[in-house]
Structures are given as structure tokens and as C-alpha cells.
């Protein structure tokens, strides 16, 4: 779902009157391999004046400038990493939609796996504690009395005999 009201508002305000859309025909590079690289890179880069849009999706003039810049660097022979580095040097970390693993983003990247591992561990400990305490509370629950054993024997014998009523 894109945009509950506020989202739609924000976007529409930012788009303003311009109705150009994302990648323009005149931007496309003649080499399809390079163009594909440019598109992939564009999806990872943020249009800095928009609310959470990649430059591949955005209609803002700034996004177009960035798309052209990416293509310029690619034609100049830069590798993908070099293009990214160039843009980060120029516009800062804010341009990356996938932040790099650095001290100030450490928590961002580590919290999801920690949540999963922590949750799993808590479940396991909880289960062990509960099954232990249940056993400690009432060991009789897990053992049959001699009388019960005998009844069980009889039941099994009856089940396995050819005539159940015998």
C-alpha cells in the first residue's frame, strides 16, 4: 500500500506541478548492459528531496540529475562501487537507501538477527524451565504406578488378542 493520506500528500506536494516520470527516454544509455547496471544502482540511491523514493522511481529534477550523473560515471568506466563512493563523497550517507555497516548503523543491522536469536533462546529457556519445574512439582505425572502399569499391560494384551472381548 502506497500512501495513506499523508503519504500521498507529501509526495504530491513534492512532485508539485511537474509530471515527468522516473527514467526518461533521453536518459537511456545505448549499451543495454551498462543501462541495466545504471538501473540497478538507481534503485539503491535515494532522491534526497523526496520522501523515501529511489532516484529510479522519482520524478523530481534532482533525481534526474543524479540518474544522469550515475550514467556519466558508468560511461567513464567506473565500477558500481566507485559510482556509489563518488555519490556518497558528494552527497553523504543519506543518499544510500541501504546504509553501510558502520558504528552508527551497527544497531540497525544487528537488531533484527539479535531479536530472532534472543526470541529463540528465550523460548528454549522458557520451555526447559517449565518442563523441569513441571517434573519437579509432580514427578508422579511422568511415572505410572504399579497398578496403572498392570492396567496398561492388560489393555495392550486385549488390543492385540484376536477377539477383543476375550
Amino acid at each position: 500500500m502506497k500512501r495513506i493520506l499523508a503519504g500521498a500528500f507529501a509526495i504530491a506536494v513534492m512532485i508539485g506541478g511537474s509530471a515527468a516520470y522516473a527514467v526518461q527516454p533521453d536518459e537511456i544509455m545505448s549499451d543495454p548492459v551498462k543501462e541495466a547496471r545504471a538501473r540497478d544502482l538507481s534503485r539503491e540511491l535515494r532522491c534526497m528531496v523526496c520522501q523515501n523514493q529511489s532516484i529510479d522511481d522519482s520524478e523530481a529534477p534532482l533525481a534526474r540529475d543524479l540518474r544522469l550523473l550515475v550514467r556519466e560515471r558508468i560511461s567513464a568506466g567506473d565500477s558500481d562501487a566507485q559510482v556509489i563512493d563518488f555519490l556518497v563523497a558528494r552527497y553523504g550517507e543519506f543518499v544510500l537507501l541501504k546504509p553501510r555497516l558502520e558504528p552508527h548503523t551497527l544497531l540497525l543491522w544487528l537488531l533484527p538477527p539479535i531479536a530472532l536469536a534472543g526470541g529463540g533462546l528465550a523460548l528454549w529457556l522458557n520451555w526447559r524451565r517449565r518442563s523441569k519445574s513441571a517434573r519437579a512439582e509432580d514427578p508422579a505425572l511422568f511415572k505410572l504406578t504399579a497398578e496403572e502399569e498392570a492396567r496398561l499391560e492388560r489393555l495392550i494384551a486385549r488390543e492385540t488378542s484376536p477377539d477383543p472381548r476375550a
Partner: protein
Amino acid sequence: MIAEAGHYALVLALGLALIQSTVPLIGARWRDSALMNVARSAALAQLLFVAASFAALVTLHVTSDFSVVNVFENSHSLKPLIYKITGVWGNHEGSMLLWVSILALFGGMVAAFGNNLPLSLRAHVLAVQAWIASAFYLFILLTSNPFLRIADPPIEGRDLNPVLQDIGLAVHPPMLYLGYVGFSISFSFAVAALIEGRIDAAWARWVRPWTLVAWIFLTLGIAMGSYWAYYELGWGGWWFWDPVENASLMPWLAGTALLHSLVVMEKRNALKVWTILLSILAFSLSLLGTFLVRSGVLTSVHAFATDPTRGVFILLILCIFIGGSLSLYAWRASALKQGGLFAPVSREGALVLNNLFLTTACATVFIGTLYPLALEVLTGEKISVGAPFFNLTFGPLFVPLLIAVPFGPMLAWKRGDLLGAAQRLMGAGIAALIALAVLWAWTFGGSAIAPLAIALAVFVIAGALTDLAERTGLFRVPFAASVQRARGMPRSSWGTVLAHAGVGVALIGIVCETTWNTEYIGSMRPDDVAIVAGYQLRLDGLTQQQGPNYREMMARFTVSRDGERLSVMTPSKRNFTTRGATTTEAALLTQGASQLYISLGETTADGAIAVRIYHKPMVLLIWFGPVLMAFGGMLSLSDRRLRVGAPKPAKALRGLQAAE
């Protein structure tokens, strides 16, 4: 006059909510059933007054009364009637009024249909509902009054944002709010249980239908919003990991977890403490979503800081309710007795695993959405967290979850047989492997992950069908007998099968659309032909026409395949004169579950027009899946066992029979 009446009705609703939030609690303390019953009449009266207030605002919009600020800023006399009505909630003040109206609606429904609840539980639940309602009435009356007048009424309004002038606005926000606000009921039940210090399987049975209602609406609301974005915003995307979307996804994930843990609680009286926590979390996340969307904090932390009244008010509500309920939880939860034991490999174990992954997924979205805000507030550093982050962290969590989905219903309660379940799922596994082999052969050299993901989806769907076959004894008993069994199967079991299959269906759509989407971007002149995924699209020409409150440029494309003419597609661009804004109206052509999608760009001086054409294979499955899930939910909801609630005393039944 109407505006003042609407305003006054809202003030009266606040008064009623204040009564409803205190008197029943005193009644519960004194065991006075008359005082406890005040909750019921107050809730119904509150609903009446909020409905009157909402009707007043609708009337003002419909009659284009521009002496009211809200109408002036969001309406226009030439706007079609439907958008005059939907425009009521297409703005901050109106959408908050819709929010409280739905809250009152749910409160009223508990009051009207909660006859089988114990009196003190109903009193507590409605009192907690009234706390929430009071907070939001105050918010509206103090910071966002939709009934304010202008001293000097203008002749014409400023019109509604053109992006919102769409049928999507009629359906999406009300559905989403029914979902968001619906979780308030599970929240109120949880807080009531904590106050009373009593919770049992019957509690779960009472909460389940309400949670299910909220979940169905939220599922449909999210799917509907996604489809709206897909056709309205004109670049063919359907999910953007935008904070506003995440705000609705988080309660959905928590709510889905809650639905599953409620099953365990109802059937086995276990997971009580956890279920209470999830009920609190699901609604807390709804409140968080309301805060994120309504406070302006998303546009910029600074926008929030410069005009803080609304944001701070909602933040205050957020802190009081989330903080308060969690403190109550910390204080009282240990008093709740833990229920039945179960082995890790069991139906309960599978549902716990489901909860683990869903809550972790929810936490991931939470962290990704709020981390940049927190970092900026704390250190001033600005980072972006977007789709690539979520695809990398959120996606993998669903792989183990989806593998586990078919196993859940195959396992017995208390202690399950994993090997036995695996044997019964052999057919589903083979179906998945065949799908994998076929896809790999077919897309040889292409993406390696996509066939794996589709195989997983096939496994989930085939697993759901295996569950159905197991329950009806298909292939083991004569066919007529299985049909008989299928008819007698509880509707909630049908619900499980459909909802689980829906997840698989949606996954197929998502994978196909993202992997095998074809795109054409080019400048076209009349009579030019574009070839996309085997379809020939000929631009016949461009025409201008006048709509009610916009001018439109429409292009006409003839679509054909292998020389055979299929259809005509007419994408357009609309220019709304009042706001000077333009929208792209994409044209869609459905072929099976796939779609052709055309959207228009700028015209150039030499008469060419920029065109974007997509072929999106299986794209409709993305929304068909959630619809199937919601339908499963509805079947579950219609299950007699849920409607009946807790068994009634036999005496009452005999009384009824005697009367006949």
C-alpha cells in the same frame, strides 16, 4: 448551523466517553450491576453522537459550505459527488474524525453484541475503550477541529489533492482504519483481563472474532492501498517500504501473530501471558502508525519540531497508552497462571514458531522505520533506510516461516510427529520439486532464486491442499464420503486452508512480477509501434478533453498479439486547474493474471510523447493472495463456534424451547 451542531455532538460524545470511562469501573468495584450497565448505554449513545458529528461534516462537504475551513481547503464545488464525500477523510481533521467514529462503532458493537460476556468484563472493556476515545476526542477538539469557520467565506474551495481524487480513497482509508482501530478491542480486552486478574480460554474465544474482524479489514486495506498505488502513482510499483506503509504493516504482522496465539490459548489454555502482550502490542503499533502518519514527523524531524502541537499531543497519547498498558502488564502478568504444557514439536510449538518469526519480522520493520528518526534526533546524522534494507532483512525471515506453514496444521496438539507430518507432506514436497525443475529448465541461465521462491510458494499452497485432503480423507475413502466430510468440516478449518494458500499465491505474484517484469521506455509518435513481451502496442493518436474539474490528454493504443487485435488502451494525463497539479492515469489491460500497464510522460516539441509500458506477469496474484486470506478469515468468522462464544447455561436454552 450544521457545523456548530457537529462540533457540539462531538463535545457531547466526549462527555459520554468520560462517563463511560469511569462509572463502569466504580460499578465493577462496588459490584453494582446498574453502574456497570452504564457502559453499554453510554457506548451506544456515544456512537450515536459521533455518527451525527461525522454526518455533519459529510453534509458540509457535500453542500460545499466554504465557510468551514476544512471544506474550503479540501473541496471544490465542481468536484464529483463521490469525491466530495471521500474528501471528508482525505485530510487530517476529517480522517481523525473517521478514526474516532470507527472507534465508537467498535465500542457500540461490543455493547450491542457482547451479551454473552460476563458483566464486569464488559464493563471493563468498554471503560478502556472510552479512555482511548476520550483521548482522541480531546485531540480533535483541541488541535484538529474540522468544524472551524472562516470569518470571510470565499466563493470557491481549493479542491482536493488530485492524487486522492480516486475511488481508492473511498475504500482504502476506511478499511485500514477498521483494521487499525479494530485492534483496540483486543487491547481493551487485554487491559480488562489484567485489571481483573482473570483470564482463561473463554477470554480467548471472546477476543478471537474481534481480532479476526480487525485483521480481515487490515489485510484488505493494505492490499487495496497497494493496488491503488500501483495504478494511481503511475510507475507500476506496488510496495515501497515507505514509513507510511510500514506503519500499517507492523500492526498487521503483530495482529497475524495474535490470531495464531489466540488459537493456542483457546484450545490449550497456554501462552496466556504472551497473548496479552501481543494484544497490547498490536494496538500500540496501530497508535504508533497514527502518530507517524499524523504528526508530520516522517516528512522531516524539523517539521515536527516547528509545529509541535499535534505531534506532541499524539506522542503524549502514545506514551500514556503504551507505557500505561505495558506497566500494567509488567505488574499484573505474573499473577496469570500458565496453562498446558506442550512439547516443542506440536501444534502449539508450530504456532509459537510462527509467532517468533512474525514478531521478529515486525521488529525488523519497526527498527528500519524508526532507526533513522532516532539517529537524527540523537546525533543529527541523517541516514536513509529503504527498500534494499528491508528486502535483505525482512525477506529471509519469511523463508523458514513459509517452510513451517504446511507443517503446523499436520501436527497434533501437545506432542506432534514431525516424521509423520513430513510423510503426509511428501506430495506437496514433490509438487514443489517439480515446479522447481520445470522453472529452472524454462528460465535456464536466468535468476536462480526466483524458481526456488516459487517452489516454496507451491509447497505452501500444496501443503494447504494436503491439509484439506487429510481432513476430508480424500483418496482414502470414497469420493462421495470425502465431499460429505468437506461439507461437515468446521468453517474455521476451511479458513485456515484458504488463508495459508493465499500466502503462497501472493508469493508467486510477488516473485513473478519482480523477476520477469518487462519494461519499455521510449518516445512515441502517432502510428509508432512498441513491442513488449510479445504484444504490439500501436499509438493511434492523442486527444484532449475536458473533465468535471480537470483537463485531460488521452492517448489511444491498439494492442494486438500475433496480428490479432486484442483491445484498446487509453492512458491519460489529467491537469487539475485549481491546484495546478497533474496526475497520470495509467491504462491497464488484464490478460489472465498478468497485466499490460501504460503510463504517459511529457510531450516533446516535435509531437512525440514519452511512454512507459510494462508487462507484469502474474501481477494480480499479489492482491488475489491477500483477498484469499481475508476470505479465509471471513469463513473462520462465520464459524458457529466463534459466534456462540462461551457455552450458555443450559437453563437459558430450555427457557427458549419452552417459549416456542
